[in-house]
């Protein structure tokens, strides 16, 4: 039995790296600093250790060869999920380049809301340590922060900070969704201000808030049930803040064209920076989301939704959605990569399907090939990106499971196809 300290987590997106974990053979137990997101993800047991072809256990070599044979004559395979570490994504992109595949990151329909705003007008963002040490006013838009990151307040807000005398006096303002618990109440008892509205009304509310920040006159007295005077008070607080931060999870903005809301927030932040400092802080990055976007970004030029079918990378954030390609009958094979979450199963399809995923994934319909792989940060070392896209954490190997890494498997399939081309 060994106890490992300072373990980084690839699961929560926050890059939390203070977990203490006990390893007993193949069993992993979080001893301290776990949370509702990280603890079950670390403790998920290994069940499958052997690859399968049509449900029958085979060797890794046989599974790799069969996967290569399924991909060999495809015209438009889709590699989806993309939940793995940096080396796994490197292997995935090499395979996509080799097979002319589409690469589609699992949560891109959410990430797209941010990426489209970035690509249209840009933003002024910040990172976790700046929030921790500087943020005096935090506005949480449409998001239940403590269910997204259970330890966010404890770790990053109710602490000692370099530039705030009393962090308990930070202003927390919820706009839209109210918090599910009391994590946002400071140790000294200061509660968050909650200004509620239905999530789908946020576009109107944020538009009014931005207009108020810009000093424009609003004739209406209320918007979506919120008094304009209440929004004016928030605008004033942001203007008076030394270092305001506005945070949201794109996934929670669950309505059409939420990218326009993100854009309005980002433009409002730019407006605020004409006189003071304020930054955006988009939350996300669970299970390798940012890792996939980053590696795809430097390899292809585009964060996600890239087709290599023409021999070069082509980007379309809408048409290259896995579900669209499967439903329209455009794709002719599916590779599902999910090294973090055994419950994130591939979409239903009758196409040849290769699943490279965390041990223990169960299927309604057994895929043609299933290769259980190690989880980065548990079964092998690796790198994962945190939500703010700046910090890559070094993942540790905690146990000897002998499960191959995603990179090993995808590189082997790619190698198989490469040899066939050369021969």
């Amino acid at each position, binding site marked *: 039995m060994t106890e490992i300290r300072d373990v980084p987590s690839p699961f929560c997106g926050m890059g939390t790296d203070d977990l203490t974990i006990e390893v007993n053979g193949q069993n992993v137990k979080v001893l301290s600093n776990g949370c509702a997101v990280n603890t079950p993800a670390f403790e998920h047991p290994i069940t499958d250790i052997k690859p399968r072809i049509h449900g029958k256990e085979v060797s890794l070599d046989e599974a790799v060869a069969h996967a290569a044979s399924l991909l060999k004559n495809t015209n438009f395979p889709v590699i989806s999920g993309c939940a793995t570490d940096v080396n796994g994504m490197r292997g995935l992109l090499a395979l996509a380049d080799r097979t002319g595949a589409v690469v589609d990151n699992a949560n891109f329909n959410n990430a797209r809301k941010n990426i489209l705003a970035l690509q249209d007008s840009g933003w002024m963002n910040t990172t976790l340590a700046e929030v921790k040490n500087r943020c005096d006013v935090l506005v949480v838009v449409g998001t239940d922060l403590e269910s997204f990151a259970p330890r966010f307040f404890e770790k990053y807000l109710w602490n000692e900070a*370099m530039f705030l005398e009393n962090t308990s006096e930070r202003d927390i303002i919820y706009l839209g969704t109210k918090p599910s618990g009391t994590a946002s109440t400071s140790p000294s008892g200061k509660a968050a201000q909650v200004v509620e509205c239905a999530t789908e009304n946020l576009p109107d509310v944020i538009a009014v808030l931005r207009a108020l920040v810009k000093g424009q006159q609003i004739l209406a007295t209320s918007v979506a049930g919120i008094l304009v005077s209440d929004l004016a008070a928030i605008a004033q607080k942001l203007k008076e803040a030394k270092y305001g931060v506005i945070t949201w999870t794109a996934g929670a903005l669950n309505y059409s064209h939420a990218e326009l809301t993100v854009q309005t927030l980002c433009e409002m932040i730019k407006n605020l920076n004409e006189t003071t400092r304020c930054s955006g802080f988009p939350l996300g990055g669970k299970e390798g989301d940012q890792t996939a976007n980053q590696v795809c970004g430097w390899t292809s030029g585009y964060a996600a939704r890239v087709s290599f079918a023409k021999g070069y990378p082509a980007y379309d954030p809408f048409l290259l959605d896995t579900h669209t390609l499967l439903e329209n009958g455009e794709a002719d094979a599916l590779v599902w990569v999910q090294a973090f979450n055994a419950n994130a199963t591939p979409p239903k399809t009758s196409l040849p399907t290769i699943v490279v995923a965390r041990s223990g994934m169960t299927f309604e319909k057994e895929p043609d090939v299933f290769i259980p792989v190690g989880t980065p940060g548990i079964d092998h070392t690796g790198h994962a990106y945190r939500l703010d896209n700046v910090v890559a954490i070094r993942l540790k190997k905690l146990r000897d499971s002998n499960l191959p890494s995603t990179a090993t498997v995808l590189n082997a399939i790619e190698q198989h196809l490469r040899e066939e081309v050369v021969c």
Partner: protein
Amino acid sequence: MLIKLTGGLVYDPASGVDGKQQDIYIQHGKIINKPIGEFQVDKEYDLKGKVVMSGAIDMHTHIGGGKGNIARMLLPEDHRLDPVAGNHICRSGCGHVAPSTFITGYRYAEMGYTAGFEPAVLPINARQAHMEMGDIPILDKGGYVMLGSDDYLLRMLTAKKDQKAINDYVAWTMNAAKAIGVKVVNPGGINAFKFNQRKLDLDEQNSHYGVTPRDILQVLATAVKEIGISKPLHVHGCNLGVPGNIETTLDTIQGIGGLPMHLTHIQFHSYGTEGDFKFSSGAAQIAEAVNKNKNITIDVGQILFGQTVTASGDNMRQHANNKFASPAKWVTMDIECDSGCGVVPFKYKDQNFVNALQWAIGLETFLLVDDPWRIFLTTDHPNGAPFTSYPHLIRLLMDRTFRNDVLSTLHPEAQKMTTLASIDREYTLQEIAIMTRAGAAKLIGLENRGGLSAGNWADITIYTDNADRQKMFEKPDYVFKDGELVVVDGKVVHTKWGTTHIVKPNFDAGVEKDLRTYFDKYLTMKLDNFKISDDEFTEDGRGHLTTHPLNSVA
């Protein structure tokens, strides 16, 4: 395998060889002396009439790290104009202003470059910089770690820690981030921007720390020297792009008191305020100061006309310039009590007075600095122009007629404000070889690179002499990397992985005591998880590290 390169005209400034016909022998990746006695050549290349230089080294190019990836993600429309298909040798990707990593490696190699150095590695983002560079094929790479706006250093200065403590911190950071140099960007200014300061002159205090850019430059330049780093402190000065910043730059040179210092992309820091438009060239004064002060080296950061994207750690200045973004979108970030970044797409126009004069200021600087060992050919890729424009830039330097022809097409008021037309100098092949090879290797402190004598790694570029220098330099006949033929007729024929160049300066292990407390209290990562380990380079079987010697420290 013994390779012989026969009869080429060798330009090897590192050995003082200036266009002399010489044979070169290569074995086990390195250049060797002609073997003694009987020997068999396995492969011979007839290079009669060809020009032979060592592989070029770009000592300042933004090829790895977060701001580059932001630039990529920001500009899908630029990638779409330059899609690059893969083949059985090369991966696919995109090119132009923010090329993908693989295409970066291929295109550099196809111009005869065999190494590139990322000048702005944020300590907290160093992993990303190395991972991106780890996906750049063929080239060797390395990075200068950025300090000077990090709260830890500023706290040390406020607490009046002694130089020895600062030396330990700098050396520790270089080891942790796997760097070969140290850079400072808008010294303290990125930090001051977080406190809502919008400019920071050389003697202006950070409103929180009371520390000035001059203080920061002094302690960092001293630290770099005292811990034995060959590469002088790499300085992106105050007031980038501000008319009148020539005074700051001259003051920076004087103020450093003879310590080794490299002023990067100095073109952006050489502006006066004369003339009808209150914008003028300070190149002559800068060149005079550089010529006089032997402790100073510079690279130019030449601008060339067309679309590009500016990506900098200097978010204070990038934010100030956001109204010039073209297309109109831009990003800034504050980063981890460490630094920041700003990405602003930009289009330099030859009929714009300011842009045209910036072009002329860069060229004046090149032509007025006497010593090619102390000036380096850069566009600050991609900030002044993408690196793929280097052959064009070389022609501008080597061909006075061509240069003046281009000048005559620019904004007429800019033509009146430059002395360029009166400068006769044309760079020689040897001077180009100094700036882009021997000088760069010497500056960075690369052992066994940048030269063609025995013992050097066989990074070799062979060109066909051509009076059109752009044509000559954009399409080498052959490029060897570590003795392997990687490019023929300007196209990649074989790929391999280069090394990462680093130094490992010594430090007192006690430095971690205060750092650990600081990390635990204020940062969001554990100190031990912050430090980059060697196996992070080697575990995928591609990368490796090359550690270079330190200067002996008195």
